[in-house]
């Protein structure tokens, strides 16, 4: 028999195949969740608490109900089933009951004939709040006398990793204290969805999410409906980056649709989006690094505290990542790494690209530079000397069995071309720090170069089996063989749909691959997060294709084959599930084979700082990334570039400013993300050392650049200014020395 796999240029794996959804996206025809529309549709709106901590005494909805065009106003008592939801712990109310725990918490929902009426009705709801003292500082939340947010206290998760002899001595010690701010994912498409009541008493929800089945599991019990009566359908997703990991408007839209018997659309505006999803955890990190005179790392001590905000969300996994990665991509025989995620009355924090690894990298890479300075060593030489490799033992006792080309990444990154020097005097003002707003002639410009290395886990850890299911059908029509693929995996923009078609083409040897729309009628694909879908859903599609192909080969047998389509009557179908290798929870000493595998990255940043004005221009970013195998090189580079942009934003400008738990900059006017004028060229080197045991040897590629770029930018700013710069994002005040440098603070008890 002979089934040929696609030759070069046929759209198989390894080629830079254009996106399958590219055309409808450039013409504006691609339907996003916020573009949904139905005959007879109502608009839903949410009333949110303006207070970070308060008791609700009474809610008067009469004014809202009397508003013409208002069809329903629902409160906590109207939730027919379970009153709470959550990805990990069920502790977040669908609508606040007796208390509110953060400013922005949903209190009531309204459905009205049009959007403006719904907004007006929300303004007419009167809530009698008794204000309580909020806990808005993560260390204050740990004090024994702090008000308790939840019955179990204010600790979400506390873990300590003890490795080797945590009290082992060293020749040289360096110590540091670092802080990171709260970053917003800021996907361009705000949260949106449309719930349509069904004849069977159930509901169909069309929604932009990262994980259809996790939403379903949280929605159905709150509606008091069996899961088969709640059908989720993926709508167009305008970016995610972790923001759609948690439920936002899903339950609310379903409640309103079921109550009114009409389709209900909820689409957040930008301001509400800042309140309506979780954010990157702010962190406070203390570290001590001990080394021998020759630069060999001997001992790393770390104490991390992260602000989880009002509800659990994914804080346990985020602090798990930050703590297990706290020593960085370096071999260290002795360590004591302790992490605590706490509850406060701030916005809930959860998933964002890099998920705990970003904050840790800012701290441990600053420490590596300090250590190099203390030892009088070249910072790259120090990193190369201690770099992890295949076979290395992590502080958790886990042995790295997969690819770990850390040394090669460092060398490849360092070898990427440097940008040319530029005189400040004869250039377009747009190329000065601050651009056209620059008020001097560049007399105080200084260049700096910084370097960082980091890593992150792929897929879910600590015993979680986040499997993915795929269905594949191979049939014939008038034009020949055609493959159809269905999964519940979410295309958030990362390019998964294109990768899936490439895998199907390669495995089945067909040109035409059609993707069926994702929904909950098939088994879970797991989340489009943790850089996992290429590995997990890609793996499931590969397995299903291989099963189809095996059946095709059986049918063909020893026949001479003019064309395989002769054997596709009836069509061949298969469903397969892909599991990653099993992992373990961490034990009492923080030991365990907890992570599936890792992706590493290295970044170099070249910056120019105006040391009088505190303005920055990033001149160039260079990133080397461990990708296993690039299944679509153009798409991989796109991930590296986009991840770098979010890293640059985190280093220099992006921070949700909270005052007494209230967001002060919930808009794109006040929360700045990088523009074309902020982003420099991003050079990338893809290091392809295939990962054993995963489909095609391909690692997930979404996160490493976001992990390493912030630390590299901070290092470059330190080099340019000579300042310690221990807090990200670095603001102009920091660069000119107007903001007090935090003295080395002691870890909390």
């Amino acid at each position, binding site marked *: 028999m002979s089934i040929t796999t696609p030759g070069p240029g046929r759209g198989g794996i390894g080629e830079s195949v254009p996106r399958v959804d590219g055309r409808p996206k450039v013409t504006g025809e691609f339907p*996003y969740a916020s*573009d949904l529309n139905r005959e007879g549709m109502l608009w839903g709106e949410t009333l949110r608490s303006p207070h970070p901590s308060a008791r609700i005494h009474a809610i008067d909805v009469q004014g809202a109900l009397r508003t013409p065009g208002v069809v329903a106003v629902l409160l906590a008592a109207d939730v027919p089933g379970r009153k709470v939801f959550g990805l990990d712990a069920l502790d977040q109310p669908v609508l606040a009951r007796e208390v509110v725990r953060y400013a922005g918490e949903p209190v009531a929902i309204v459905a009205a004939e049009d959007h403006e009426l719904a907004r007006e009705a929300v303004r007419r709801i009167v809530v009698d709040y008794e204000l309580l003292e909020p806990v808005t500082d993560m260390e204050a939340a740990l004090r024994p006398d702090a008000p308790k947010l939840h019955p179990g206290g204010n600790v979400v998760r506390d873990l300590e990793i003890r490795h080797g002899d945590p009290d082992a001595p060293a020749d040289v010690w360096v110590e540091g204290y670092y802080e990171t701010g709260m970053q917003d994912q800021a996907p*361009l498409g705000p949260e949106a969805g449309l719930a349509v009541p069904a004849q069977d008493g159930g509901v169909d929800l069309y929604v932009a999410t990262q994980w259809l089945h996790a939403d379903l599991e949280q929605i159905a019990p709150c509606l008091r409906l069996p899961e088969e009566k709640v059908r989720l359908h993926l709508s167009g997703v305008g970016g995610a980056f972790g923001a759609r990991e948690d439920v936002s408007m899903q339950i609310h839209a379903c409640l309103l649709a079921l109550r009114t018997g009409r389709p209900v659309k909820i*689409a957040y505006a930008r301001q509400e989006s800042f309140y309506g999803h979780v954010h990157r955890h702010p962190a406070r990190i203390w570290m001590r690094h001990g080394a021998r005179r020759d630069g060999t790392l001997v001992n790393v001590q770390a104490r991390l505290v992260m602000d989880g905000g009002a509800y659990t969300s994914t804080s346990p996994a985020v602090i798990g990542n930050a703590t297990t990665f706290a020593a960085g991509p370096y071999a260290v025989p002795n360590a004591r790494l302790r992490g605590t995620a706490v509850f406060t009355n701030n916005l809930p924090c959860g998933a964002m690209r890099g998920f705990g690894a970003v904050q840790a990298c800012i701290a441990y890479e600053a420490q590596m530079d300090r250590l190099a300075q203390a030892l009088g060593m070249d910072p790259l030489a120090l990193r190369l000397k201690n770099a992890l490799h295949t076979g290395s033992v992590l502080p958790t006792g886990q042995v790295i069995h997969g690819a770990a080309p850390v040394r090669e990444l460092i060398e490849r990154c360092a070898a990427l071309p440097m940008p040319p020097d530029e005189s400040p005097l004869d250039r377009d003002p*747009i190329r000065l720090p601050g651009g056209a707003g620059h008020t001097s002639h560049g007399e105080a410009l200084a260049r700096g170069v910084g370097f960082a290395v980091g890593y992150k886990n792929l897929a879910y850890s600590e015993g979680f089996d986040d499997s993915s299911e795929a269905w594949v059908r191979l049939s014939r029509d008038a034009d020949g063989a055609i493959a159809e693929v269905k999964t519940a995996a979410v295309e958030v*923009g990362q390019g998964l749909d294109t990768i899936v078609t490439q895998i199907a083409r390669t495995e089945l040897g067909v040109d035409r691959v059609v993707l069926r729309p994702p929904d909950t009628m098939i088994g879970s694909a797991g989340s489009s997060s943790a850089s996992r879908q290429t590995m997990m859903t890609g793996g499931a599609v590969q397995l299903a294709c291989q099963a189809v192909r095996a059946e095709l080969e059986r049918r063909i047998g020893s026949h001479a084959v003019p064309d395989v389509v002769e054997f596709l009557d009836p069509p061949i179908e298969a469903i397969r599930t892909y599991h990653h290798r099993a992992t373990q929870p961490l034990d009492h000493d923080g030991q365990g084979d907890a992570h599936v595998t890792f992706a590493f990255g290295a970044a170099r940043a070249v910056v120019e700082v105006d040391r009088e004005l505190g303005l920055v221009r990033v001149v160039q970013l260079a990133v080397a990334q461990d990708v296993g195998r690039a299944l679509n090189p153009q798409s991989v580079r796109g991930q590296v570039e986009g991840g770098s*942009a979010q890293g640059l934003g985190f280093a220099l400008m992006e921070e949700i400013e909270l005052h007494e738990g209230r967001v002060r900059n919930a808009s794109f006017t006040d929360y700045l993300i990088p523009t074309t004028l902020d982003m420099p060229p991003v050079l990338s080197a893809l290091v392809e050392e295939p990962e054993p045991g995963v489909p095609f040897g391909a690692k997930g590629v979404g996160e490493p650049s976001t992990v390493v770029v912030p630390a590299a930018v901070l290092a470059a700013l330190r080099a340019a200014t000579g300042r310690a710069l221990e807090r990200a994002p670095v603001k102009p005040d920091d660069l000119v020395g107007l903001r007090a440098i935090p003295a080395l603070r002691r870890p909390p008890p």
Partner: protein
Amino acid sequence: MVVRVRVNGEWREADVWPGTSLLTLLRDAFGLYGSKNACEQGECGSCSAWLDRELVCTCLVLAAQATGRDVDTIEGLRSDVESGVVQSAFVEAGAVQCGFCTPGFVVAVTDLLRHDPAPTEAMVREALSGNLCRCTGYAKILDAVNLAATRLADVRS
């Protein structure tokens, strides 16, 4: 109030609340969802369209201000040669990820290349600095602009 606008060459009218933006008129009254609502403050460019052939953020224009005027949106570019080249360049260069910003970028780049067929990189960066993209880091968007400019130069010569 009733507003009457010539959208993509065709007169259309709707009865709307006086505070309605041109963006909301296009999307919710006329069903033209290609112009996106991502910030409602004129910061992101996702709602970019032409008002009397001038590039605007439609979220910052009242529907009433557009009465009696020409509005041209991404949907009106179907037979436009320049924007067709821009659209193809975006797909080929890998300038599209989630795509939510893309219609606004296509409009803005088409506008830029109509006014300046061979912009320098600094000019492209400045011209597109009002369009936010959260996915790409802009590198491949800049590649797409170069590709489109080169191809349009070939078409013209």
